[in-house]
């Protein structure tokens, strides 16, 4: 029974973690695109 409680808390943080990584990667990609000189 308690397994589901821990699972719920873990899943909550896993989703936020994955989303944050997704945002961070996008931030890095945009930063490199900003630095690319225009042709």
């Amino acid at each position, binding site marked *: 029974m308690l397994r589901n*409680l821990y699972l719920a808390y873990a899943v909550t943080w896993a989703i*936020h973690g994955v989303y944050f990584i997704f945002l961070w990667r996008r931030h890095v990609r945009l930063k490199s695109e900003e630095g690319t000189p225009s042709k």
Partner: protein
Amino acid sequence: MRPLIVLFVVVTLALLGFGFYQGMYAAPTEQTMGDIQRIFYYHVPSAWTAFILFFVNFVASIWYLMKRRTTTDALALASAEVGVVFCTIVLITGPLWAKPVWGIWWTWDARLTTTLVLWLIYVSYLILRRFSDSQQTPTLAAALAIFGFLDVPIVYMSIRWWRTQHPQPVIGGAPGSGLDPSMKFALYSNFVAFMAMAALIMWFRYRLAVKEQRLEEEHRARTLRSQLREVR
């Protein structure tokens, strides 16, 4: 600006830690369900936060249709995306709580079904924004968002209007319903913490959206210039 953000991050992390402690340890154990009820302290604040983010998306969409400002469109996109993240958490923590308490993972009752529909509406909104190439995309997305938001009050009222497997409201419910003050404190602590975190993530996503708009605009201008050069 940067020290302010760092301070906000520190405060948010402290609030999240405090909320976790309140939900897991400080709040009393519920009599009927036992410790599994502690999912409530993540499940309900996630739902409230998602509702608020969808409301921000609704207002930003109306504002965009009125003023056509790209920054408002970026705000609409950021709030919808972060709202979907919180709504996903609601849809996962709910069944994890339901299984040991009801004996089933899912049932097609009014609250659960309308919440799933809400999630699907905003996922379609994000898909539309991601894959549509037209310059009309922000307008179409804003129209979808305005109609999509109509589901939020239905989700909120579903447990008041219809008899559902989902429990009746403990906050703002019928006379006699309510929460123990220490449970209420744990609930509100987590709500404040989740709201702070949502504001932080949304700010980050908003800045990315503005940057993407600017890069796209530059790309469009470059393409136009090269086409003009070819014509000459």
